[in-house]
């Protein structure tokens, strides 16, 4: 481990080397607004190519939101062409997102954790599982630690976009898609055999299938994908713990709002006829007709 670089203004980010890879150590005291600027200054002080093409972030005990983490990783990639490959952080709420979405290797006390590390609710950021959806009437969704409506991820309301309607190109149609059968142990599906009315909330740490409609004012929050065998008019948050591979499929899409991972979108008013699927493509939520298989 190399000694830290000369001090800037305190509090400060340190540039260290571990396993000959650059590590930005960001202490708790640094405001996120200043992080990128400080990193820029640190990199400018180094001789060119001293850092190599990859780096890691060491957040230690510092809590960080998914959005800020994504912005930081993006900043290093775009501004400095440095790929963030690893993360030291005790904030468990971001582990799964960091692994799955940002493809970061996690280091806990210097050792990578087991592959399928499940996120544990963080008392500071998230509601304890015992407090989840006690008011979801008649819907038994409380069997698992479930993501809470609107708070499982740190969503940014300023990022609400209009969802794009897309028609798949012919090449999309023809391309034989060898869907990797993700044999994930522990993935479960909650079946809800009724219409969700206004005020009903379903939260589940897995996939959710609704046999009925989802009316305006009802809300589904799922760690996995959501399938509505009926008309979707309410709010659905799929991939609520950060999984942007999650999708929302319904027979008739007239949703108030769609959320997948950290993305939020408002679908167009004029819904088209027939089943549609909403998913994330190139960082945006898009809506496509559902043609008997998932348009991946």
């Amino acid at each position: 481990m190399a000694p830290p670089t000369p001090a800037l203004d305190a509090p400060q980010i340190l540039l260290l080397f571990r396993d000959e890879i650059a590590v930005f150590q960001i202490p708790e005291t640094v405001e996120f607004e200043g992080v990128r600027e400080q990193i820029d200054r640190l990199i400018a002080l180094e001789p060119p190519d001293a850092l190599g093409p990859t780096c890691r972030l060491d957040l230690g005990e510092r809590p960080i939101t998914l959005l800020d983490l994504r912005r930081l990783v993006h900043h290093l990639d775009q501004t400095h062409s440095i790929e963030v490959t690893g993360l030291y952080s005790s904030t468990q709420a971001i582990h799964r997102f960091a692994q799955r979405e940002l493809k970061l290797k996690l280091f806990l006390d210097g050792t990578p954790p087991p592959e399928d590390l499940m996120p544990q609710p963080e008392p500071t950021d998230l509601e304890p599982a015992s407090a989840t959806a006690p008011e979801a009437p008649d819907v038994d969704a409380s069997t698992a630690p479930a993501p809470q409506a609107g708070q499982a991820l740190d969503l940014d309301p300023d990022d609400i976009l209009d969802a794009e309607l897309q028609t798949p190109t012919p090449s999309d149609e023809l391309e034989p898609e060898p869907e990797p059968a993700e044999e994930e142990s522990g993935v479960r599906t909650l079946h809800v055999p009724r219409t969700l009315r206004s005020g009903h909330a379903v939260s589940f740490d897995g996939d959710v299938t609704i046999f009925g409609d989802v009316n305006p004012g009802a809300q589904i929050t799922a760690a996995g994908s959501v399938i509505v065998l009926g008309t979707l008019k309410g709010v659905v948050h799929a991939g609520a713990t950060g999984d942007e591979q999650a999708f929302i499929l319904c027979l008739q899409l007239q949703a108030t709002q769609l959320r997948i991972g950290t993305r939020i979108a408002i679908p167009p008013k004029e819904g088209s006829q027939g089943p549609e699927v909403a998913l994330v493509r190139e960082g945006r939520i898009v809506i496509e007709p559902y043609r008997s298989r998932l348009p991946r």
Partner: protein
Amino acid sequence: MSECLVITSGKGGVGKTTTSANLAVALAREGKKVAVVDADIGLRNLDVILGLENRIVYDLVNVIEGQCRLKQALIRDKRIEGLFLLPAAQTRDKNAVTPDDMKKLVDDLKELHDYVIIDCPAGIEQGFKNSIAGADRALIVTTPEVSAIRDADRIIGLVEAHDLPEPELILNRYRAGMVGRGDMLGREDVLEILAIPLLGIVPDHEDIIISANRGIPASFDDDSVVGAAYRRIAARLGGAEIEIPSFDDKQTFWGSVARWMGLAPAREVM
């Protein structure tokens, strides 16, 4: 100096939410910075009336429980400068919030806005207690119906017990024609019972149903008589002295013809 107004009535369906939305728009049109808060947790409507339902990410309960920052939950109305909505939670109930929580929330909102308008739920229970906790001034909405006035009277008593200044009255869904025929209580009758200052009268008009369904409050519409009534009330809130019109039908052509022909209804029946 910012001020928190609570819009309350006791009885449901007399126009609290409509009044909250329209006064908020009217005040924002005067250049004021306004936050309108839906305190009807579990039965939220204000977002729909304002046409902002699809932009809700966080709500009042999320703010109080510390799951998001206040500014994240405030929805900025893009149609007009200075208007913000703090929506209610739909999947929770009134007991998710205490009067102390609301007081703190209102204090935080008052730092950012000239007016904080609280849309109180019907009833006199927890939701009402939460709504008046942080209020500086209460506006009582009633319609000229015996049952609504009875409830308004009860609410006025409760407001006065809370060390608020004398509440002011908004008489909603007023039909001058019916009053003229003696089929509806007139403003004098209502004021005789409730004995509080009259802030304004809002005529009954189909505009209000259309605007509610479209999510565009009538106060946005320069041609709407209802919108004009709400804009006058907003101006009076700031201290302007504007006369309350009679909303009488004597201006109308057929009204004049009827009177000329001696068919006009007796006006002194009340």
